[in-house]
């Protein structure tokens, strides 16, 4: 593998919502990058800021109350941090496609599927309506909807949930964008359909050489599709690395907790699923130290007093945890141990 080209770079992003009750600091200094052709997963529990981050990149958060407080967003070599809504319109839909969690509500109920796909083509390219409809039909073929020439004239309520998500993918990929942002694309679907949708996304990623950012709380989805993983907690990134690093050599106690709370095929019989106790902190007044400290079995005094710095485990693997400090007591990594004990 040669040096990979960066498609999207997010540097130290800070994003807040000004509500009546005060400022909600939803994203507090998040940095990551996406390379061309790869799939990046952003993982975390509800409300950790993963959706807000990606909506901020697309400038889809309603502003106000939303507000970009700091940081830089560089997409395909262009600094789009301060793009106006008008400038963003040229990027949305054509260079970055996006699909959402609930396909039931993400399509306009009073417009035919065909028109909804053709709309994005007509917006960004100077083609005739008939041509746009023809390409809409082709897109439906590509995403695997049978009888496409009949289907384009139907309304969303005539489609099943999985079909609708396929239609959403058709809209998002109609113009072969460089990046596809998928915000919990399978959460609202049946398990059997989930796998189909993920397979479709993987196929199209190869076919169109699209980069994918997938936002999810489902580690199964991550394992299925992602090349690299970013783990977020309370508006911050706690750990990031390749899929192998995160699944087999996780370093952050929160990542451990996440992994222990999902069933694994390679688990021994006596291993039980362990929930992470407690709830994430209140983002009106985030803790001064590590946000996970209050739920962390390994918490030290310092964890409550100062935020940890990000440290490098390898070229691709970063952790933000005080346990990485030389003064910290040695902690046995439950996952490294597990691997060792397997021998």
């Amino acid at each position, binding site marked *: 593998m040669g040096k990979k080209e960066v498609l999207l770079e997010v540097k130290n992003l800070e994003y807040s919502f000004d509500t009546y009750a005060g400022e909600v600091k939803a994203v507090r200094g998040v940095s990551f990058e996406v390379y061309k052709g790869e799939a990046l997963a952003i993982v975390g529990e509800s409300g950790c800021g993963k959706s807000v981050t990606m909506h901020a990149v*697309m400038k*889809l958060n309603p502003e106000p109350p939303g507000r970009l407080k700091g940081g830089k967003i560089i997409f395909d070599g262009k600094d789009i941090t301060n793009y106006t*809504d*008008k400038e*963003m*319109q*040229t*990027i*949305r*839909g*054509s260079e970055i*496609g*996006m699909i*959402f*969690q*609930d396909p*039931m*509500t*993400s*399509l*306009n*109920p*009073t*417009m035919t599927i065909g028109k909804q796909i053709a*709309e*994005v083509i007509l*917006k*960004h390219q100077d083609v005739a309506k008939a041509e746009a409809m023809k390409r809409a039909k082709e897109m439906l073929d590509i995403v695997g909807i049978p009888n496409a020439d009949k289907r384009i004239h139907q*309304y969303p*309520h*005539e489609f099943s949930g999985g079909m609708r998500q396929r239609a*959403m993918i058709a*809209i*998002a990929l109609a113009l072969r964008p460089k990046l596809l942002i998928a915000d919990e694309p399978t959460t609202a679907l049946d398990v059997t359909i989930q796998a189909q949708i993920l397979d479709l996304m993987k196929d199209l990623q190869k076919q169109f050489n699209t980069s994918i950012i997938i936002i999810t709380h489902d580690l199964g989805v991550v394992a299925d599709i992602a090349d690299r993983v970013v783990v977020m907690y309370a508006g911050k990134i706690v750990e990031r690395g390749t899929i192998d690093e995160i699944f087999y050599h996780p370093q952050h106690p929160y990542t451990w907790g996440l992994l222990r709370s999902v069933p694994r095929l390679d688990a021994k019989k006596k291993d039980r699923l362990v929930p992470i106790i407690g709830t994430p902190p209140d983002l009106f007044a985030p803790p001064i130290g590590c946000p996970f400290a209050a739920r962390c079995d390994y918490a030290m005094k310092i964890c409550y007093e100062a935020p940890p710095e990000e440290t490098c485990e390898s070229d691709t693997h970063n952790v933000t945890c005080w346990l990485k400090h030389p003064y910290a007591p040695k902690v046995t990594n439950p996952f490294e141990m597990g691997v060792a004990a397997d021998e």
Partner: protein
Amino acid sequence: MLRYTFERTIYMIVTLWVIITLTFFLMHMIPGDPFTSEKRVPEQIRQNMLAKYHLDKPLIVQYGYYLRNLLHGDLGISLKYLNRSVNDIIKAGFPPSFQIGMQSIILGVSLGLVLGIVAALNRNGFWDYISMILAIIGRSVPNFIIATLLQFWIASKLRWLPVSGWGTFAHTILPSIALSFASLAIISRLMRASMLDVIGQDYIKTAKAKGLSSTEIIWRHMIRNAILPIITVLGPLIAGIVTGTFVIEKIFGIPGLGKYFVQSIYNNDYTMILGTTIFYSTILVLMVFFVDITYGLIDPRIRLGKGGR
């Protein structure tokens, strides 16, 4: 859609039949008959009159006669204006009422929609407050008071428009405004709420993620979806405007059907009350019917005969 239209048609017919029957028997429960008050009418003539209008027959027979005539479009003869048929009176009185009613509906609905859309798009802005104030007035001040105040200030004091009467377009302005106030208020508030609801929908986010401009999103995705729930209140709204004409016509001295209707109430004019009630009800029921059908045409979920979502 066919099934839906058929269902609606059956409803309309049954509703009309119930109204006709109910009105007919209610009218005949009113104590006395229209000739009792006229003391000078000799007994023999009174009997003749009753016979002439079949009023001496058993009620059920009268009902039969009435239904038969009704099917031929004959609403009978006014008992007060003895030489005029109810049909004639309606023919004379309906055009002014219709004009005022139509103008009010158009004014109220179009202005209400515009105001509601603008208010939703400028939430908590200047137009939002204007629409809120108008809505509060429209909801709280009865139309006859608005009419009286308009008449007093604009016509009597400022002399910009005629105080009362009928003939020119100028005569129709104040009555239409007074009558449209309530619907303007209701429509603008509903449209605002509906727009705000649509703005929060996921498909608006999808539209934005497609790179559409705000104007495109508003026109193509928001308004059409936001108008849908508004259509359902048009029926009751039109009913309010039609009944509103009773007092408005009285206040502005308009020779419309409403005025005749109120007069026939004072005069105990059976056939006239019966005829106008049936006429009004038919119009209202037809309006509701058309509103239902329009709703079906606009909303694909109904048009294609399936439940939503």
